[in-house]
C-alpha cells in the first residue's frame, strides 16, 4: 500500500507536469485514432496504465521465488492511479479558481476547459479519479495475465502508437507503393484525420498481436535452426540480409517524395558524422564535445573553393575539392589535437568544446569575414554534376551519401578489427597499461582524431552541397551534442547502433516537426531515461556490453552455450 501511494504520487506529479509545460495542449492537435484519441490524452492513458502496471509488478528479494501477483494487485493499481487522478483533478480545480497564467503561461483557458471534459472543474476531479482508478486496475490486470499474451499485447499497443505517429511518412509512401503494385492508392482504410482510422487501429492491433504471438511461440525454432548452422552459413545469411537491406535502401527513393529523400539524406549525413565521432569516442575513448568544428571546416572549405561568390575569386572542380577538404580537415585535426590529447578525459571534453565554440565564433566574426564571409555566410555553393546527374536533387545526393555511408561503415568495421582497433581498445580500457605494453598512445590518439576529422569534413561537404550556402549559425554546440547523443543512444562503438541512433534522433524529429518546441525536451527525457535503463545503448557492441554488464553477460553467455550445446546434436 505504501508503494502504491508512492507510485501514485509520482504519477500524479508526472500527469500534472505535461499540461503545465504545455505539452498536453499542443499534442491534443495530433490524432492517434481518428475521433477517439489524441496524443494529448494518450499521455494520460499511458501514465495511468503504467502506474498500475508498476505497482502490481511482483517484487521479491534476491534468491527468493517471485510471488505471482494476486487479485489484491488490482486494488493497489487502482489506488495508485486513483491518487494520480485525484492530484490531476485537484490541479484542474486550482487552475480554474486561481489565475495561474501570469506565471505559468501554458495553463490557458482552453487547457482547463479540455481537462474538465466540458463539465465543471469539480466534476473533473471525480472523472479523473474514477477514470484513473479504472485504468490503474487495468494496468495491474496486465500483470495477472500470462507473459505469452501480455507481451504481444503491449507490443501491439506500441506498434499502433508508432504507426499512427509516423502517419506523415507512411501516408506519403503507402499510396506510392500501392499504385506501383497496381492497386488503388487509397489509404482511408488505414489513415483518416492525420491519424489511424478506427478500422486501421483495429487492423494494426490485431495483426501485430497475432504476429508477435506467433513469433514468440514458433520463433524459438527458427532461432535454433539458425544457431545450428555452421559459421560459414551464418555469415552468408548475415551477408545476404545486409545485401537485402542495401538493395532496399537503394530502392527507397523511388517510392519516396523528394522531401522524404531529403530527410533520408539528412539522416545519412548524421550517420556519417556519427561514424566519424564513433571512432574518436567509441573506439579510442576520447571524449570530443566539439565535433561540429570539423563539420564547419568541411563546409567552409567546400564553399570557399566551390562558390564563385567566395572571397577567393577562383574555383576548383570537385574532384580536387574533395581530397583538398579532407586533407585540410585532417591537418587541422592533428594540429589542434596534438597539444591537447595528453589531457585526461574530462579536461579533453571541455577543451574540445572550446574548439567547437572557437570555430563557430571565428567563422562568424568580422575579423575573418573578408575571407569567410562572416555573418553573411558564403552563398552560391553549386552542386557537382556526376555523369550528368545533378547532386542538388535530394534523390541523387541520397545515393552518394548512401555509398559513402556503406564505404565508411565498412572501413570503420575493418578498423575496429585490425591491429589499430585493438590498440585503441587497449588504450580506452587503461592508458597506462597500454603504454606499458608498447602502444604509442599519442600516435594512436592522433590517428583517431585525424580520422574523425576527415570523416567530419566529408559530412561537412555534403552539408554545404545540400544547402547550397553556409552560415555560421549552423555550427553550434547542439550539433556536437546531437551527434554524441546518437552514438550513445545506439550503443558506443557499434556501427548498427550509429545508424539506428541517427534514425531515432534525427529522422523521427524531422517527421514530428510540429512538436518543434518540445523536441529538445523529449530529447532530454530520452537521454536521461536511456542512460538510467540501458546505458549500453539500443544496439550495443559486444565489448561495450561486457564492460557495463560483466556479471549478467557471463550468465547469459553460459545460457547461450548451454542452449547451443543442446540444439546442436539435433541438427548435425
Amino acid at each position, binding site marked *: 500500500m505504501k508503494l502504491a501511494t508512492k507510485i501514485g504520487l509520482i504519477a500524479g506529479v508526472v500527469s500534472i507536469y505535461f499540461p503545465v509545460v504545455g505539452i498536453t495542449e499542443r499534442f491534443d492537435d495530433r490524432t492517434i485514432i481518428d475521433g477517439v484519441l489524441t496524443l494529448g490524452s494518450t499521455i494520460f492513458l499511458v501514465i495511468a496504465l503504467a502506474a498500475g502496471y508498476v505497482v502490481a509488478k511482483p517484487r521479491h528479494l534476491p534468491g527468493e521465488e517471485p510471488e505471482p501477483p494476486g487479485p489484491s494487485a488490482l486494488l493497489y493499481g487502482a489506488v495508485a492511479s486513483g491518487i494520480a487522478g485525484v492530484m490531476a483533478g485537484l490541479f484542474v480545480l486550482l487552475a480554474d479558481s486561481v489565475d495561474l497564467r501570469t506565471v505559468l503561461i501554458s495553463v490557458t483557458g482552453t487547457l482547463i476547459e479540455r481537462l474538465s471534459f466540458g463539465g465543471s472543474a469539480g466534476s473533473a476531479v471525480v472523472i479523473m479519479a474514477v477514470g484513473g482508478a479504472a485504468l490503474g486496475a487495468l494496468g495491474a490486470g496486465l500483470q495477472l495475465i500470462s507473459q505469452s499474451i501480455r507481451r504481444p499485447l503491449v507490443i501491439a499497443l506500441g506498434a499502433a502508437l508508432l504507426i499512427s505517429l509516423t502517419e506523415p511518412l507512411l501516408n506519403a509512401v503507402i499510396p506510392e507503393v500501392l499504385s506501383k503494385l497496381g492497386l488503388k492508392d487509397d489509404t482511408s482504410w488505414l489513415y483518416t484525420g492525420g491519424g489511424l482510422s478506427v478500422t486501421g487501429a483495429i487492423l494494426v492491433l490485431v495483426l501485430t498481436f497475432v504476429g508477435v504471438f506467433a513469433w514468440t511461440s514458433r520463433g524459438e525454432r527458427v532461432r535454433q535452426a539458425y544457431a545450428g548452422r555452421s559459421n560459414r552459413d551464418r555469415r552468408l545469411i548475415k551477408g545476404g540480409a545486409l545485401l537485402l537491406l542495401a538493395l532496399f535502401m537503394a530502392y527507397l527513393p523511388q517510392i519516396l517524395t523528394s522531401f522524404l529523400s531529403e530527410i533520408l539524406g539528412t539522416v545519412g549525413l548524421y550517420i556519417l558524422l556519427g561514424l566519424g565521432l564513433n571512432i574518436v569516442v567509441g573506439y579510442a575513448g576520447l571524449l570530443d564535445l566539439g565535433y561540429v568544428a570539423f563539420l564547419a571546416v568541411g563546409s567552409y572549405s567546400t564553399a570557399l573553393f566551390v562558390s564563385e561568390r567566395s572571397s577567393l575569386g577562383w574555383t576548383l572542380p570537385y574532384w580536387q575539392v574533395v581530397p583538398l577538404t579532407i586533407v585540410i580537415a585532417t591537418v587541422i585535426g592533428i594540429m589542434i589535437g596534438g597539444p591537447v590529447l595528453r589531457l*585526461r578525459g574530462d579536461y579533453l571534453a*571541455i577543451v574540445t568544446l572550446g574548439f567547437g565554440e572557437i570555430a563557430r*565564433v571565428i567563422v562568424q566574426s568580422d575579423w575573418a569575414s573578408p575571407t569567410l564571409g562572416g555573418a553573411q555566410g558564403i552563398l552560391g555553393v553549386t552542386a557537382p554534376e556526376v555523369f550528368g546527374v545533378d547532386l542538388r536533387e535530394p534523390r541523387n545526393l541520397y545515393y552518394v551519401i548512401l555509398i559513402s555511408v556503406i564505404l565508411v561503415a565498412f572501413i570503420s568495421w575493418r578498423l575496429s578489427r585490425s591491429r589499430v582497433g585493438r590498440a585503441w581498445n587497449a588504450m580506452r580500457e587503461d592508458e597506462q597499461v597500454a603504454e606499458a605494453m608498447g602502444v604509442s598512445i599519442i600516435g594512436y590518439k592522433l590517428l583517431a582524431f585525424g580520422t574523425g576529422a576527415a570523416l567530419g569534413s566529408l559530412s561537412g561537404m555534403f552539408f554545404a552541397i545540400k544547402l547550397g550556402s553556409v552560415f555560421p549559425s549552423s555550427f553550434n554546440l547542439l550539433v556536437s551534442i546531437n551527434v554524441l547523443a546518437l552514438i550513445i543512444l545506439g550503443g*558506443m562503438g557499434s556501427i548498427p547502433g550509429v545508424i539506428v541512433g541517427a534514425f531515432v534522433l534525427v529522422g523521427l524529429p524531422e517527421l514530428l516537426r510540429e512538436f518543434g*518546441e*518540445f523536441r529538445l525536451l523529449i530529447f532530454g527525457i530520452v537521454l536521461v531515461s536511456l*542512460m538510467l535503463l540501458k*546505458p549500453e545503448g539500443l544496439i550495443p557492441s559486444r565489448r561495450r556490453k561486457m564492460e557495463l554488464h560483466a556479471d549478467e553477460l557471463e550468465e547469459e553467455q553460459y545460457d547461450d552455450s548451454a542452449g547451443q550445446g543442446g540444439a546442436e546434436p539435433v541438427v548435425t
Partner: protein
Amino acid sequence: MRFALPERWSVQRIVKILLGALLLFVVFKGVSATIADGKFTAAAWKSLITTGLALGSLYALIAMGYTLVYGILFIINFAHGEVFMSGAFTAFFVARTLNNSGFLNDQPIISIAILLLVSMLVSTTIAILLERIAYRPLRGAPRLVPLITAIGASLFLQNTFRGLYGAKVRAYPEIDILSGTVNIFSFVVGKDQLLVIAGAALLVVALYLFIERTKTGRAMRAVGEDKEISALMGIDVDKVIVTTFAIGGMLAGAAGVLWAINFKQVDFYMGFLPGIKAFTAAVLGGIGNVVGAALGGLILGLLEGVAPALLLTGYDVPSPNQLKDVISFSVLVFVLIFKPGGILGSDEPDKV
C-alpha cells in the same frame, strides 16, 4: 611511431618553450600597440576591469557547484547551469510581485533577502532532485554515462522552464538603492556591481571555511578521497553527496539573483552559457579545488572584460568583443598545455 621516452620529453619541452615565447611576444606586441593607440582612457580601463570582476565573481560562484561535485563524484554536472537558471527565473516572479506592491523599494534589503531565499530554495531543490533521479542510480557507471545524463537533464530542465514560464525575456525590476555608483580607489563601481562582488566574495569565503573547519566539510573531503574507506569510517556517503549538491545549488541560487540584479534580465536559456563558462573556470583553476575555482572564475571574467580590448585593439581587429570566447578558450588550452591539472590543480595523471 614510437619514440624513446627521454627524447620525446625533450621534443615536447622544446615545443612548449617555443610556444610560450611566441605567445608572450604576441601578447606583448598587442598590448603595447593598444596602449600606444590610446583609444581608451584610464577611466574606461577601470570600468572594464570592474565589469570583468563582477562577471568573474559570478562565474566563481557558479563554478563552486561544478568543482564541489567533481571533487566528490568525479562527474561533470552539466545541468548545473540550469540549476542556476531555475532559481533566478522563479525569483523573477516574486520580484515582480514585490515591485508591483511597492515593497521592493520600501524595504529593499528585506526584499533582496527574500529573493535570495526563494532562489536558493528553488535551486537547492532542483539540485537535490537532480542528484536523486539522474545521478544516484548511476554511481559506479563508466564516466561517459553520467555525462550524457547530465546533458539530457540540462536540456530537460531548460525546456521545462521554458514550458512553465514561457520563452519571453523578462526584465528584473530596478532596485533604487542599487542604481548609481560609488568611488573606490578611483574605480567607479556601480552599486549593483559592488553588491555582486561583495556578496560573491562573502559566500566563497564562507564555503571555504565550511569545508576546512566543520565536521561536514571534513566528511566531504574524506568522501572525495575514498568513498569506501569513508563509509567504513562511519560517514554516511549518500548524505554527504546530497549535502554537496545542496550547497552547490544554494550558491547557484544566490548567483542567480545576483546575476539578475547585475544584468537586469532573465530567460530560460540564461543558464547554459554561464554554466559552460563556469565549468571552464573550474577547470582553469584546477577542478576539485575551491580556491582554484574562485581564481579561475575571476581570471575568466577579467579575460572576457578586458582582454579583447587590451589585446586585439592593437592589432586593429574589427569588433574585438566578438572574439572574447576565442581568447578565453585559448587561454584555457594554453594553461592546460603548460599545467595539465589547471592553475592550482595537481599535475598527476588520472588516478582512476
